[in-house]
């Protein structure tokens, strides 16, 4: 399917960013219209609210080979849906702590609050996150975890 061939030996991480429609997605739009760049390997999925992000989406991303997953939402207190991001904050605090407990580097997951006015912050966050994932290298671990000890994948 992939028609554009990559130089195989250069590591380009896959990064999935879940952005809430009202703040962070708009913040990403502002980063765009302000021409504030961040790496092209950051790909954004639009969700109505950060509280729509099911832990299963995060796990699915890692299982499918993502090297980093970042969740962005409105700042606590500014949620378009009043309380959505408060639940996100608890859920992801626990989930990401849990993934680290299983041996996944804690820097592969992140939650950031980015408002619609924070285009510069959006770009800075993505640059920083991508840089960190680059340093961590390929996410062999969750790929490995799904492989049975005795072989078949």
């Amino acid at each position, binding site marked *: 399917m992939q028609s554009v061939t990559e130089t195989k030996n250069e590591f380009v991480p896959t990064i999935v960013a879940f952005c809430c429609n009202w703040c962070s997605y708009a913040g990403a739009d502002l980063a765009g219209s302000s021409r504030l760049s961040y790496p092209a390997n950051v790909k954004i999925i639009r969700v109505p609210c950060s509280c729509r992000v099911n832990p299963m989406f995060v796990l699915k991303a890692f299982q499918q080979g993502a090297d980093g997953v970042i969740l962005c939402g409105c700042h606590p207190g500014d949620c378009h849906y009043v309380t959505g991001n408060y639940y996100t*904050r608890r859920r992801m605090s626990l989930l990401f702590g*849990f993934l680290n407990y299983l041996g996944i580097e804690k820097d592969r997951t992140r939650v950031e609050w980015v408002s619609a006015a924070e285009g510069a912050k959006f770009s800075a966050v993505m640059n920083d996150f991508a840089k960190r994932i680059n340093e961590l290298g390929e996410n062999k671990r969750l790929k490995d975890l799904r492989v049975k000890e005795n072989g078949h994948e």
Partner: protein
Amino acid sequence: MNKTEEQIVKRAAELLDNKEVDKVIGWKKGEFCFDPSPAAFTSSDELKDFVYNDFCGANLSKYLVNECKSGGKIAVFLKPCDTYSFNELVKEHRVNKEKVKVIGVECHGKLDIEKIKSKGIAAVTGAEESGGKVAVTSLYGNAELDKNEVLLDKCLTCKGKKFAVADEIIVLNEMEETKNDRFSGVEALEKMSEEERFAFWKAELSKCIRCNACRNVCPACTCNKCVFDNNASGVATKAPADTFEEQMFHIIRAFHVAGRCTDCGECSRVCPQHIPLHLLNRKFIKDINRLYGEFQAGETDEGKNPLIEYRESDAEPSSAVNGEVRHA
């Protein structure tokens, strides 16, 4: 027949004969002394098979979910730790407490037959604990074992002898509180490096044969239809070897019961592969306590669990994951 069992059977017979209840949920004699299984009794005649001994580790609360669907009143025998599960089920409307009579029963910790067998004792015919020792009888003779060496793992970290709920109790001998440090296992893992933890869990989780025993026994896993059997979720697949389902199962299951898990330890007890599944749930419990304040699921049958609750001052995930923050 021990005194407690006698008392329990007597009470069960009374309740059934007086038509105070239509059904009693208890433990039924198995082939051996060490394999009693949960069962429903509908008449006092059936009670001859009723058993309550030191191998009755099973938490009966979950059986109420199905039994409550039919009409009539039910009596259930619950050990102190099982009562928390009962409250949690009431809170989530899975059990109608109006229909249930909870009878709290005495428990001094239940025994693990595998541990007894591993002491080289075969063909066990009976075992009774008293005062830190367990007297085991077998076809090949008797033995006395140290109680702590043969208790179920879940009983080594006993939550306490308090009944979170009980309409009446049958306790003949005072139950001694045991000191425990239930988070030490989690702490040991937390102290390891990420590589070591990963290796540990990789080794443990790859033993899983997806028999679903943990899910089937778990009193918090009472979904009408499990998400892993739900096509719309995008995770269910018919092929049992699918990697996502298989490997993410335990993570998602642990997350789903987070804040609702009473730490009853049934998942680890029934795992045929001896995966220490309770260490997954306890990590969530430990973090919830640390971040959002001490919380014991099932302490009461109302209120909200920590994941459907929030405070404006909650910790940010970045610092929460680092283990730096503590609930003020």
